[in-house]
């Protein structure tokens, strides 16, 4: 063996640089370009921080910021508590016990995800209002109506929890169904009782899964604009809107956005820390499903009520209220304009779903082909948009694109062309924002199906003389089709439901169902908001059921 010291030489700086030169390819460059493109809104918020805060910043810090922080803190704590109770208990009961309508309830528990929180908020406002459904019901029964005021912070926490708990339910249930059986049997063999098994074994083991669901909930809580606005609670998101639209102070919006991003990254770090602290190796080959028990006596009713309560509160009640309103307002709301808005909404959702999925595919495969591990790690940055609230992304896109538009108008004016805003006020900015925000929604299902395709499959295609792109089209794409399809559907629903980002970035003459519902509600016409709301719910419901089927198949 010649060349002694090969080992140390292989990782000397000189050799590393040589290898970098050899290994960097067009895919590395393209991956970096896409990541940069996706991270741009956040980068701009960072850059804009250096131009100093707006005039009212001092005022906001003194009078409003404590309110924003305290309200957000309150929502995070109360929602976490409620969501954990609803989500974990229902997940455990449907995984461990067999009871009346268990199968139906298993997927009904996911349905609250089909209703955007702000719409649940409108429905509950109607239920508890003076002259609302409760009031009517009590009067019919000849009873005195004790009014519960829910248009406040506590009410908002309830609304957000009841509409977002399925995130925790889904991830906890996936754990209980797929991972828990061996442990459960072991615990039983050791003679440990049911309650102790749950609290001492199942709950601690499921913690990473539960925390992952919880972090998703909290991101949505901090992202919410519609419900907080309607319930009159000042949060970071409403603050961003106020500084942008009422105070017309982009700088202040930027500072609030930066603070919000900071809070969210703290949450993400918390999740990572939680998961790392207890990194359980889950056996992937564990195919045995949990054996369900039949509860006896009173327990039967306790479990039945515990599982049906979140379904009634999160789905059935609000939908009944909305249908009731829809019947009343159908004649005034349902017209040609409404049909046009629905069609626009669908079209925008489909186009942005396809664009987003396309970018997700590019990101996944370009980084794979780039062969540099550093590039693969960097590519994960592109997925972070999901953590960033829609309003923040919108601000991050508004600022640079407005500047770019100004420059374009000037340039065109020089050659004698008179143009309006080219990027802002057109669909380009909106579609770009959706792609940034929902990339992770498309990325995850595609990535997980792609992982199931053994590397040897594309490898053998390459060894047979076929390049990356052709291998993708002929071999990999046909094998990951289902993942791509579910990615399109998931992004489609999210775009249909999206409100804050759409409100800021939508072109003047274009409306979506979500925006229409919000506008009705803001104009004291909450009843009229019911029809666009129901349209959103029903389009979102079909795929939610489809998603559940996929989960069961898993």
């Amino acid at each position: 063996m010649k060349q002694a010291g090969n080992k140390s030489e292989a990782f000397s700086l000189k050799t590393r640089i040589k290898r970098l030169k050899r290994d960097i390819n067009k895919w590395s460059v393209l991956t970096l370009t896409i990541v940069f493109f996706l991270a741009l809104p956040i980068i701009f918020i960072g850059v804009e921080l250096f131009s100093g805060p707006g005039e009212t910043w001092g005022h906001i810090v003194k009078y409003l910021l404590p309110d924003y922080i305290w309200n957000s803190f309150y929502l995070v704590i109360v929602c976490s508590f409620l969501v954990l109770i609803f989500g974990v208990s229902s997940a455990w009961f449907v995984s461990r016990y067999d009871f009346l309508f268990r199968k139906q309830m298993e997927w009904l528990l996911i349905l609250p995800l089909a209703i955007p929180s702000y719409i649940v908020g409108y429905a509950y406002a109607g239920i508890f209002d003076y002259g609302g459904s409760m009031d009517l019901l009590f009067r019919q029964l000849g009873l005195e109506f004790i009014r519960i005021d829910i248009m406040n912070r506590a009410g908002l926490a309830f609304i957000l929890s009841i509409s977002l708990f399925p995130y925790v339910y889904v991830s906890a249930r996936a754990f209980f169904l797929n991972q828990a059986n061996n442990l459960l049997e072991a615990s039983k063999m050791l003679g440990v009782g049911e309650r102790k098994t749950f609290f001492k074994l199942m709950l601690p083991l499921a913690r990473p899964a539960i925390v992952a669901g919880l972090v998703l909930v909290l991101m949505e809580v901090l992202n919410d604009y519609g419900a907080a606005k309607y319930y009159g609670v000042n949060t970071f998101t409403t603050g961003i809107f106020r500084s942008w639209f009422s105070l017309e102070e982009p700088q202040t919006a930027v500072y609030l956005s930066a603070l919000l991003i900071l809070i969210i990254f703290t949450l993400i770090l918390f999740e990572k820390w939680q998961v790392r602290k207890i990194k359980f190796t889950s056996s992937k080959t564990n195919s045995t499903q949990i054996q369900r028990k039949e509860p006896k006596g009173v327990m039967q009713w306790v479990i039945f009520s515990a599982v049906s309560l979140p379904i009634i509160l999160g789905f059935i009640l609000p939908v009944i209220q909305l249908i009731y309103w829809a019947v009343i307002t159908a004649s005034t709301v349902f017209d040609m304009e409404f049909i046009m808005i629905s069609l626009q909404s669908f079209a925008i959702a489909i186009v942005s779903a396809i664009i987003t999925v396309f970018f997700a595919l590019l990101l996944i495969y370009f980084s794979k082909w780039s062969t540099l591990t550093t590039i693969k790690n960097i590519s994960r940055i592109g997925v972070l948009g999901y953590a960033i609230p829609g309003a923040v992304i919108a601000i991050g896109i508004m600022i640079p694109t407005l500047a770019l538009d100004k420059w374009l108008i000037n340039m065109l004016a020089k050659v004698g062309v008179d143009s309006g805003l080219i990027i802002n006020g057109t669909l380009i900015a909106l579609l770009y924002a959706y792609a940034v925000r929902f990339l992770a929604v498309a990325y995850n299902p595609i990535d997980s199906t792609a992982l199931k395709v053994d590397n040897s499959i594309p490898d053998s295609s390459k060894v047979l003389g076929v390049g990356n792109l052709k291998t993708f089209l002929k071999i990999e794409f046909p094998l990951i089709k289902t993942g791509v399809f579910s990615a399109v559907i998931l992004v489609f629903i999210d775009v249909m439901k999206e409100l804050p980002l759409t409100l800021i970035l939508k072109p003047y003459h274009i409306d979506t169902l979500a925006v229409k519902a919000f506008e009705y509600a803001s104009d004291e016409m909450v009843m009229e908001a019911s029809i666009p709301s129901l349209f959103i719910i029903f389009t979102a419901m079909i795929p939610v059921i489809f998603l559940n089927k996929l989960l069961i198949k898993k």
Partner: protein
Amino acid sequence: MLTIDSLSKSFDKGKNFALEDVSFNLKAGQVCAIVGESGSGKTTLVRLIAGLERPDHGSITMGGKIIASLDKFVQPEKRKIGLVFQEYALFPHLTILENVLYGISKLKNKKTRAQEMLDLVGLGNMGSRYPHQLSGGQQQRVALARALAPEPSLLILDEPFSNLDTMLRTQLRNEVFDIIKKTEVTVLFVTHDTQDALSVADEILILQKGKVIQKDVAANLYVKPNTLYVASLFGSTVHINKNLQNAFRCPLKQDCCHAIRNEKIIVSPSSAEADCEYITAARVIKKIQLGDSTQLVLKLESGEQLTVMTQDQNIADTIYVGFNSKDILEFEQE
């Protein structure tokens, strides 16, 4: 035909090396087996040669051209290497014929060529089936036909038989190498099974912890193993450590490692009958019948334990055991 020169690869930036300073040559038309335990770097080595990994150091030259080095890298699709994966890696959504056609789509007579290859592996009438409709052995042969179809200058088989049970394995191994012999292609054959290697390879390369321990023809590996590890790979071997040297009163060279083949150890009822230079009395503490031979666990006079094999069925409780100096294998200290 293929020259590997001081090839190194690490998957954790130099902390551990999957492959360290590996060099060897392969002549055209040769069948070379790469033998090693799992984790010895066999798969990494063939992936580097196929172009599915990039070397951290060293170079690979094929047919006189550098295909991988620190400043050059030829894409796998340009290398003209056939590779049969351990898990076959057939494209599940394509038929058998389409699988074989895949690598030769630019050929004029591709249909005839593909059919020829399927006939060669004895699956000529199964072209329209899908991979999941075939047995493991049949899938294996399709993978072989697919790899051979583009007439590669080098064929790599990565643990091709490890997913099969023992009976099928021997049969398929012979079939596959009969087919390969007809094509006269140069072959690199990765296996952890020495029987596989011995039965088909012209030369065998032993990898241990990412390093080449020995590369030689099969007979030499048995007679002149480089290390104790190689010796024990090709036949059961007893390491003559310090205690055994004392037990047999055979002072051996210091700074060296010594061993003896199990079949060279002589077991005899009396010291007079045993014709060996080093001998000691021993008590049989355990007898295990293993079909046609018997395994004996012995307690030597010195108190040392030793396990030996014997064909003798009638063993007394006290026996003599010994060996001759010409049978002792000597290696440099590991």
